[in-house]
């Protein structure tokens, strides 16, 4: 028995801000080709409000995950926060989340950094610490108010959202892990130096040698480890920097096209970085049936990918509606213009 098989998702929760920016606004302000949003397969992106950040969004997602899990927060042995937009360079976001949900003072708490894949590695680590019995539950949060240089193509998709998972024993889980695998290399596809406000990227270099190579590498490693094949999965959820890459990587791996859209949230809210693939997983959990198998493959620049095989249990039904769903948050939507978005995300600089 693999350690993964003893561990599962006891609860999940998401958060998406109310504010949305139509990508047409970015086309208009920066003079892009009007067809660019369609080529990216994204129509709008979610924008965190002026009083929101990765911590506030992470707290709401964590609360929703706890409602579904129905566990005592004091039993959470680790609060692991994956982000690349933490409010403080030095001072953990994880302790603020832990305090807000009532998991202090005996939980481990740390912020993880690996571009969009930090929370994903925290999931693999959670499997280890839960399977070993070191802790009963972990809380993994992937939350980002993604930054992009104004006028950069990245600005079309860099968005805000959070997803949280309570990870614990298989017996209590809505879905259990069957196996997992990781694939990492030193690849300079996307980076942000210290003191730089926005990340830079290697343009076309972010595709083949980064996103595609690493996700394919991780998923093939999972297939080799388990003997599973694309036809064994009911859903395939990938990191979703735009609306087209997940469909392309699915094709490369031999997954039929129809297994991807249920877990594809980016077309409606953009790429929420550490929450990108995980919010797709949450959406799939909210429509999946017991016994179905889900492939989840997050990706982070720098670069790396993890592949998880997850099997849904009968407990998914009772947990689904204990907290707001992805669809509830997708429906809560109010369009703002570029000026308000610029103010909300600090693109307009005031001297204090």
């Amino acid at each position, binding site marked *: 028995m693999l350690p993964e098989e003893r561990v599962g998702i006891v609860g999940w929760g998401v958060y998406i*801000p*109310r504010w949305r920016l139509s990508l047409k606004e970015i086309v208009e302000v920066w003079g892009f080709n009007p067809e660019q949003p369609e080529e990216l397969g994204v129509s709008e992106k979610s924008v965190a*409000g*002026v*009083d*929101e*950040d990765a*911590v*506030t969004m992470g*707290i*709401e997602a964590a609360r929703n995950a706890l*409602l579904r899990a129905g566990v005592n927060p004091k039993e959470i042995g680790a609060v692991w926060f994956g982000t690349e937009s933490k*409010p*403080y360079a030095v001072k953990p976001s994880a302790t*603020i989340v832990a*305090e*807000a949900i*009532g998991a202090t003072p005996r939980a481990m708490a740390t912020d993880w950094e690996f571009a969009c894949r930090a929370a994903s590695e925290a999931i693999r680590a959670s499997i280890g610490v839960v399977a070993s019995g070191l802790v009963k539950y972990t809380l993994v949060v992937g939350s980002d108010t993604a930054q992009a240089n104004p006028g950069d193509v990245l600005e079309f998709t860099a968005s805000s959202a959070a997803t949280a998972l309570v990870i614990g024993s298989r017996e209590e889980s809505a879905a259990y892990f069957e196996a997992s695998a990781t694939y990492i290399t030193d690849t300079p596809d996307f980076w942000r130096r210290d003191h730089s406000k926005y990340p830079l990227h290697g343009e076309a270099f972010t595709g083949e040698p980064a996103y595609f190579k690493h996700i394919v590498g991780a998923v093939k490693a999972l297939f080799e480890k388990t003997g599973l094949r694309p036809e064994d999965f009911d859903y395939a959820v990938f990191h979703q920097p735009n609306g087209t890459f997940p469909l392309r990587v699915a094709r490369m791996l031999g997954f039929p096209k129809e297994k991807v859209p249920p877990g594809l949230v980016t077309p409606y809210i953009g790429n929420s970085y550490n929450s990108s693939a995980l919010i797709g997983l949450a959406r799939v959990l909210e429509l999946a049936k017991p016994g179905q198998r889900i492939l989840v493959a997050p990706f982070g620049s720098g670069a790396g990918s993890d592949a998880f095989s997850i099997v849904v249990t009968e407990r998914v039904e009772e947990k*689904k*509606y*204990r*907290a*707001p*769903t992805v669809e*509830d*948050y997708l*429906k*809560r939507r*109010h369009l703002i213009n570029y000026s308000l978005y610029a*103010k909300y995300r600090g693109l307009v600089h*005031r001297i*204090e």
Partner: protein
Amino acid sequence: MRISIPPFWRARIHRYKLVATKCKKCGVALYPPASMCRHCGSREVEQVELINEKARLLTWTVIYSVMEGFEARRPLIIGILETVENKARILAPLTDVLPSELKPGMLMEPVIRRIREEGETGLVYYGIAFRPVLSSESPRPRE
């Protein structure tokens, strides 16, 4: 304007979990928590967490002349709400809502937001704000 760190730090749990005190004698709930009931004078009070409780909006004001450091939040909306179960009256900022969308009696719920920050280098203070309840067609607990 720099503010003192300790009072914010001491109040963090009350803010994060919306902790009020409830009088064991007359049942009145007070927020922020108090060691004595302001209604009947009893010192027999217990702490209650209201973070999962919804509240009705009683009244609100839209502030256009804001304090230094709040310019990005203008107009600032401050409301007085009454929680549905414990009937605690709470003064708090309202968020995720436009002034034109507010209606007396509307149902709102507490969320944790950035309440203020000390410029670009100082601390960020988190606290309670209220937003309109997330409408959901799905069955939800604790309504």
